[in-house]
């Protein structure tokens, strides 16, 4: 980036990303405006939500390790749950984020080619993966290091072995224990936020979604199979389920939307990582002075208020 105009572009984009993150109120309004604008320009076509699903699952979309390489070049991976085994569908490890900031990263990892996909079990973790992640987060909490969780999974693995080893218990345990971590936790849905399987790393002081990520209680296809008895009608279910970053923002379930390069994160890995980096640094800065009890209280209160969509 020796060209001064290139440097200026990067600077502006960083600043835009920062402002993007600033206020949740403005953020929700921004999402609305963007969606209205897209509609007026005829860019949303029939189904904006389904387009997001396609982007979130795009074969070239950056996966967790693509971001980790760029965010934490000195990343040291750690393995195993110390009880049963090692699960490559979840990556855990530590390194230096910026300005000497040591962080623990836990992430769901999909594979790119067939061999990698099989190795990573298509990003569908098993109980030992969730237990490994929890162990890593507990060690970070013990030594006062912030935690970054990157969510990207179609869901927890629905298989015989996963059930035998307590898939439900592993997820439940993480949800309870993440709520008492003593260090800042920043969670970002970078692709597919597949229900409880994604949520098991999702109890953050800050929860963000990338612009084209989706976060859902059930996959659009499974939902369509229930509603229309036809799993090929995922497109219809996608909009009914309200799974886009804008939807979750409006429902008060996330704290911010992190922008992606034009056309989606797959178009420019470096730029996508830069936006993510900016958001992470800003979030960690905000929480720098918070004591463990304050962090636990802030995280707790946030989730306690979530989904107050009832009348007494």
């Amino acid at each position, binding site marked *: 980036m020796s060209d001064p105009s290139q440097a200026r572009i990067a600077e502006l984009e960083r600043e835009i990303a920062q402002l993007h993150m600033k206020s949740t109120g403005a953020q929700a309004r921004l999402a609305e405006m963007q969606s209205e604008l897209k509609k007026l320009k005829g860019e949303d076509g029939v189904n904006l939500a389904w387009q997001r699903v396609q982007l979130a699952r795009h074969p070239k979309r950056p996966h967790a390790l693509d971001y980790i390489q760029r965010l934490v070049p000195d990343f040291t991976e750690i393995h195993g749950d110390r009880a049963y085994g090692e699960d490559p569908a979840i990556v855990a490890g530590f390194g230096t984020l910026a300005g000497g900031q040591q962080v623990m990263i836990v992430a769901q990892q999909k594979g790119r080619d067939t061999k990698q996909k099989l190795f990573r079990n298509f990003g569908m973790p098993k109980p030992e993966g969730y237990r490994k992640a929890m162990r890593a987060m507990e060690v970070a909490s013990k030594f006062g290091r912030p935690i970054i969780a990157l969510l990207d999974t179609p869901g927890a693995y629905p298989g*015989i072995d996963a*059930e035998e080893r307590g898939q*439900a218990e592993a997820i439940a345990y993480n949800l309870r224990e993440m*709520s008492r971590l003593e260090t800042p936790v920043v969670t970002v849905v970078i692709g597919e936020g597949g229900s409880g399987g994604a949520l098991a790393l999702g109890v953050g002081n800050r929860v963000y979604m990338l612009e084209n990520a989706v976060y*859902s209680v059930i996959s659009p296809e499974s939902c369509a199979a229930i509603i229309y008895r036809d799993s090929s009608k995922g497109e219809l279910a996608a909009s*009914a389920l*309200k799974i886009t970053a804008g939807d979750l923002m409006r429902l008060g379930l996330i704290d911010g939307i992190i922008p992606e390069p034009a056309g989606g994160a797959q178009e420019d890995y470096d730029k996508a990582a830069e936006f993510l980096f900016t958001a992470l640094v800003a979030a960690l800065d905000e929480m720098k002075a918070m004591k463990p009890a304050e962090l636990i209280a802030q995280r707790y209160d946030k989730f306690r208020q*979530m989904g107050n969509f009832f009348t*007494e």
Partner: protein
Amino acid sequence: MDWFKHPKKVAKVTDEERHVKTEGLWIKCDGCRQIIWRKDIEETLHCCPKCGHHFRIDARTRLKYLLDDGKWSEHDATLTSNDPLAFVDAKPYHERLASMQKALKLKDAIISASGTLHGRPVNVCSLELKFIGGSMGTVMGEAITRAIERSIADRHPLIIVSASGGARMQEGAVSLMQLVKISAALMKLDQAKVPYISVLTDPTTGGVTASFAMLGDLNIAEPGALIGFAGPRVIEQTIRQKLPEGFQRAEFVLQHGFLDAVVKRSEMRQFIATSLNFFCGPLPQ
């Protein structure tokens, strides 16, 4: 064939009427396939007198069987979902809710109760499977969280009896976040050292198992209850083979180390009383 001479009398009862008349009197046991006089199983806590099969029971019957004199007081019974997604499937979700509410005389899939068990005050949440599959949305999330907060405040042990297919699809990610809300509240209950007993009944799957149902100081289940994260059909579709007999049943889950005990319905009250006695000490005389 004397009776054959009076066909008019017989003809008066149509098949449909006959069905209505006999329906409810007899019940076929899923365990032994025998036809049982329904009145008989009401005297055995809805368990088959022949094979011991535990029939599913509704949330009210559950509380009646669990609490002293079959009596309790209710909390948060008016909480009603306001359909955050404006969700429409075969019919609009708000209509589905309204018809369920009318049919079951419940606002949602839960009764939050307080009563006594062998004289000890307890807070009990009882889930209603018939209400959209016992699914958990914003109302259940709030009602259970409040029950946990009540237990922290009054220090009365908490019992949650689960019967649910998991998070409520019709409330989308709002339902999903209830898993966190409840699990985080259970962290506070844990810190307060107030006992929580999770009772898993047939069926308990999905987001309910993957949150509060697996987080008891004791996790106990009724015999034969289906317990898991993914439902059996989803697993069969994934692995493309039939599941082994007994897979995800309470006895299987116990064998794999995720239940403290499988407890018969007839022994449930005593088991919980004994456990609470261990946790809290004997009741003051």
